[in-house]
């Protein structure tokens, strides 16, 4: 990176942190520190909610995913607008009316302390573990790209987030996210324009997509039904709906965001706008990946985008085999390029017969390069069984650092840092509010003053921040933990959502029944999840429905028992 890029990177990050700290000064009460005095407008709520959900991996993984396997990932978000509608009708008005700080506080009013403590505890485990990963995942990618040790990138991201979150609380989180998302949108838009600009002169935007489409990269919609495929219309609509509803309705990192809205309407509007914008945004991010794919049909792509793993192989006893694979790859690329040029000409001539013929030829050539890459990853594993053979997350950043102009590189690297900081900040804020409101204030120290609780919240943010940073540093030593923790959310969200669904819609079920139903369900979901009987998205549906089912049965049994006891007496 040039000096200009470093300057852009640091100026962008420090300006945003400075702005957040400035706007959140003077938060001295619980209401101000944890709910931002419920004074924020809908657009801040909307961008804050989006920034919380979009981690750095969203912006790194999605273009890489489009590059390797197409755009079907967008279907994952189809359930989101529907979930936003249910949230706005049910969750938002109730949370606002009861003036709760956390979602779990409501469960004590509806059920009992046990249910509140159980859901808060499940949330703390899930969010606590995944936040370490939220910091670690981009750190390792940035360290490879910037050639800096992971420890420094982790400490930089984690340290800055802890600083402004401890200082300004929820308002600092929201205001930094407002600017973060604005810069992220601008940066991605500029990146998209640059990719098109870098394509050969006669390849415009539409032709670039056509070429990628003929090579199977524009497969947005899949109407087939497959329990094990998370990226179809049905799994997106049904599984995605339950996942998004549980995430936005019961995960404090999101509930805490929309509770800062100045009224029910402002919170609602923020969520509904998120429902309007999220899918097109995700589509455009994937489209950038597709354009990068077309770019690499005219310019030779690295044989493997993670240079760290490639360098490791270079320095190993397998160097000769690597060189052979590289030679094969070079010649495969040249033949593929010839086929792509022929396809380009066929598209120009609008000759359908030739287009179909070339479609088969380019697909075949693409398969050949994939086979060569597969032999490379096999060699990597032969050299090091723990080698990371998935380079999806490196595709976009590798392109950015190699081909984009000075200044824009710094801005796009800043985007990755900002995205990571945005979601981490929300997570720390929610971990602190749940620890203080649901545990400390409710179970340990009921009689403290408002200022003492603010102080406790600051300490809780600091401690959770330290725990997450240590976990991020520790994660680098345990590679396969990453995927396990990412899926952990689906193990827990369905159960918590089920508890809330019972709370809102089934008035006859009481605390004891829902508490035992939640424990029983969690055990079953864990068995299904660990045995991988269905794709992880479906665990949310199963968890939610099982809680409702068991709660109804247990409630009936408890009622029967009570009647019998009354009769006996």
């Amino acid at each position, binding site marked *: 990176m040039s000096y200009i890029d470093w300057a852009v990177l640091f100026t962008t990050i420090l300006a945003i942190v400075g702005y957040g700290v400035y706007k959140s000064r003077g938060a001295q009460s619980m209401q101000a520190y944890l709910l931002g005095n419920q004074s924020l407008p809908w657009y801040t709520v909307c961008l804050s909610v989006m920034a919380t959900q979009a981690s750095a991996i969203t912006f790194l993984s999605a273009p890489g995913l489009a590059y390797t396997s197409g755009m079907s990932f*967008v279907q994952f978000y*189809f359930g989101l*607008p*529907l979930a*936003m*509608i249910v949230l*706005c*009708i049910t969750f938002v*008005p109730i949370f*606002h*009316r009861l003036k709760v700080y956390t979602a779990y506080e409501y469960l004590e009013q509806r059920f009992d302390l046990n249910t509140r403590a159980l859901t808060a505890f499940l949330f703390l485990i899930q969010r606590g573990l995944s936040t370490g990963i939220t910091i670690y995942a981009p750190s390792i990618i940035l360290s490879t790209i910037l050639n800096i040790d992971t420890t420094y990138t982790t400490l930089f991201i984690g340290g800055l987030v802890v600083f402004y979150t401890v200082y300004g609380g929820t308002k600092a989180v929201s205001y930094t996210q407002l600017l973060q998302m604005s810069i992220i949108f601008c940066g991605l838009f500029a990146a998209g324009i640059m990719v098109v600009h870098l394509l050969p002169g006669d390849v415009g935007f539409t032709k670039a*997509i*056509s070429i*990628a*489409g*003929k090579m*199977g990269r*524009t*497969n*947005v*919609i899949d109407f087939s039904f497959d329990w094990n495929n998370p990226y179809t*219309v049905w799994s997106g609509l049904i599984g995605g709906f339950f996942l998004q509803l549980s995430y936005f309705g019961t995960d404090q990192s999101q509930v805490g965001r929309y509770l800062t809205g100045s*009224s*029910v*309407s*402002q919170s*609602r*509007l923020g969520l*509904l706008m998120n*429902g*309007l914008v999220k*899918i*097109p945004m995700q*589509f455009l991010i994937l489209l950038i990946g597709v354009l990068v794919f077309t770019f690499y049909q005219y310019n030779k792509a690295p044989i493997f985008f993670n240079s760290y793993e490639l360098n490791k192989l270079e320095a190993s006893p397998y160097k000769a085999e690597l060189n052979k694979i590289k030679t094969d790859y070079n010649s495969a690329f040249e033949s593929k390029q010839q086929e792509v040029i022929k396809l380009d000409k066929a598209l120009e001539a609008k000759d359908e017969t030739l287009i179909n013929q070339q479609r088969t030829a380019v697909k075949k050539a693409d398969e050949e390069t994939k086979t060569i890459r597969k032999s490379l990853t096999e060699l990597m594993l032969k050299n090091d069984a723990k080698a990371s053979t998935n380079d999806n997350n490196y595709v976009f950043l590798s392109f950015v650092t190699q081909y984009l102009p000075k200044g824009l590189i710094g801005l796009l690297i800043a985007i990755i840092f900002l995205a990571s900081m945005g979601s981490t900040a929300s997570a720390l804020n929610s971990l602190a509010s749940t620890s203080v409101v649901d545990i400390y204030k409710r179970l340990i120290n009921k009689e403290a003053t408002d200022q003492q609780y603010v102080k406790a919240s600051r300490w809780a943010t600091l401690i959770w921040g330290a725990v997450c940073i240590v976990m991020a540093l520790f994660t680098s030593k345990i590679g396969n933990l990453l995927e396990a923790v990412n899926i952990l959310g689906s193990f827990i969200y369905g159960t918590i959502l089920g508890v809330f669904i019972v709370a809102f819609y089934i008035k006859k079920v009481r605390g004891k029944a829902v508490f035992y139903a939640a424990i029983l369900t969690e055990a079953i979901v864990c068995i299904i999840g660990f045995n991988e009987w269905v794709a992880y998205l479906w665990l949310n549906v199963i968890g939610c429905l099982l809680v409702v089912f068991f709660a109804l049965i247990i409630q009936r049994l408890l009622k029967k028992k009570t009647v019998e006891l009354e009769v006996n007496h």
Partner: protein
Amino acid sequence: MEDKQTEKDLPPFVNTWKQFYFLLGFWLVLLIALFYAFTKYFE
């Protein structure tokens, strides 16, 4: 009290929140249709 306040605070472009929810549902259907057309056109 809350409901009265919500009723006064209406969403933009439409007259009621219900209409806004329908708008969002329609938007989802429209997006799926457009994506389907996109998939078919470029495949």
